[in-house]
């Protein structure tokens, strides 16, 4: 494997130890001489760590690989970047976006236990589904939109049935989403003005992570409240402190 194009499709399998020894040796040799691919591998490892730390229900192990692979392939279809250092912002962006997709997917694994179906007309990413070619961030946004709609619906059910006071408090919590959305928009604007700005990128992903975290935790809490399950609610709260 002399080129990055040859090596990169095998990095996920390399990371998981699924490559035959001969192919593994070839990838290892390429990694020794290629800072870019070493950076990609490091990012994939980071996604794996993020997936392992997902809460409250980690997705099956193969899910992150599929998503990581799709994200990587969709990124390969993009125009090649200029000469860039190892772990370039582009790849960090991609990897972080993939991690966010994973969190969103985990959310859907969790909400699968809820009674209500996902809202109509919203995109729900399934395992193995290809990330849209227009970028992983759009996939994140589509899932965030679906999560928002679902949480609103679950909250409306809670208000009508179980505990209106708690629903009031949770609705107040969801109003923080407005502040998060402002943070996302401002950070995006800053990135548009300066695509290489690390602080702007950090700010954007922090806001995205928080939005998913609030939606995920709130939906899980609503579900547990409907079941009168304090322990489940405690687990939902644990999700707040997790980093994607």
């Amino acid at each position, binding site marked *: 494997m002399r080129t990055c194009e040859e090596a990169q499709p095998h990095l996920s399998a390399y990371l998981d130890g699924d490559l035959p020894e001969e192919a593994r040796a070839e990838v290892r040799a390429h990694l020794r001489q290629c800072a870019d691919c070493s950076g990609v591998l490091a990012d994939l490892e980071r996604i794996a760590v993020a997936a392992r730390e997902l809460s409250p229900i980690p997705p099956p192990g193969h899910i992150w690989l599929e998503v990581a692979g799709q994200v990587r392939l969709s990124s390969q279809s993009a125009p090649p970047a200029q000469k860039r250092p190892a772990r370039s912002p582009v790849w960090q962006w991609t990897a972080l976006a993939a991690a966010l997709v994973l969190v969103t997917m985990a959310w859907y694994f969790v909400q699968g236990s809820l009674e209500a179906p996902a809202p109509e007309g919203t995109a729900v990413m399934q395992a193995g589904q290809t990330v849209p070619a227009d970028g992983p961030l759009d996939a994140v946004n589509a899932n965030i939109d679906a999560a928002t709609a679902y949480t609103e619906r679950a909250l409306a059910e809670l*208000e*009508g*049935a*179980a*505990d*209106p*006071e*708690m629903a*009031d*408090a*949770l609705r*107040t*919590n969801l109003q*923080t989403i407005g*502040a*998060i959305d*402002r*943070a996302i928009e*401002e*950070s995006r604007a*800053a990135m548009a003005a300066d695509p290489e*700005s690390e*602080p*702007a990128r*950090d*700010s954007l992903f*922090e*806001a995205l992570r*928080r939005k998913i975290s*609030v939606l995920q*935790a*709130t939906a899980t*809490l609503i579900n547990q*409240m*409907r079941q*009168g399950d*304090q*322990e489940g*609610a*405690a687990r*939902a*709260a*644990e999700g*707040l*402190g997790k980093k994607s």
Partner: protein
Amino acid sequence: MRVRISGVVGRTMMAAIAVSTGGIAGSAAGAAALPTRAAETGAVSQTPPPPPVPQRRGGGRRSDGGPPFTRELVATAVEVIPLGPAGLLELKTGTGHVSVVAGSGRDVRVEITRRSRGRTDADAQLGLDQVKTTLDHHGERAVLAAVYPDRRAPYRVEVSYNVTAPANTRVIANVLNGGVTIRQIKGDVTATTSVGSITLERVGQIPAARTFSGDIVLRDVETTGTVLATSVSGSVTADRVNARRFEVETMSGAVTTREVTCLNAQVRTLNGAITYVGRLVSGGRYHLQTHEASIAIGVAGSTGFELQADAITGEVRTDPALNLKGASSTRERVRGTVGDGTARVTALTFSGTVTIEKK
């Protein structure tokens, strides 16, 4: 092993029922209104029950649009649990307060207050009849839980725990709607509430303090481990905290720390200000991040540090007394080293101001 429902069997020392109307608890006349249960327990509580959980907007209303729940009955009982000096006590309730304080006795003593509200006395009584607590006690571990058989019932019952425990007891408190206060407990403390505030004072170990909606106060905490505090809507205040790792996250709320000493601090909020005053440790890592508010860092002690401060559309200000070396400074970005640079401080706000001062 003991598994029981409170007030039925076991070592319940005292139980009492008081009746009130319009939210006023504890009247003797009210107690007389429930002769059957009063006869069972034989006493009216002399200890005032804890205050009810504050009602938020729409408190007491039901989704069916009917009249509010104005009739109220209160029952108290006491459990004495021989857990040993460092047992694990787990407290669970739906709506209600949890308060734990260290005592000099060898056993855990829990005063359980059930406060039932309904549109009629009969409904409120039904709440007391149906909402129970269960105690599952195995050696040095006990789980005290409120059991709500029907969450669509014509009553609303708060179940609160007022606990006195040996100082080294480990405590886990899980509440859906209500506050948690824990004082002087040196064993591990985990406090989780969905809606309510958390106060932890003079505690030794805090694996976690988590709330969705409510403030968190940490005061006089001394631990070799991690202090973790997270909220969605609420502020976090930490005074005199000494820990290896200090991790705070909230969405909408300020974070204020005074006299915090730790090896690793991660403080994040979205639209609240951060004030971090503490002593840095050689090799320590300190990250403070907000979006639309300011960050004020007060550095105590003489430990040197690398500084990386960014305010994307705001401003970074540094105290000349820091004697920042090798500084690369613009209005919105400062990089530099103070002293030997053995610690690392990073601060990021989008539109606020970052201020770093020597204390």
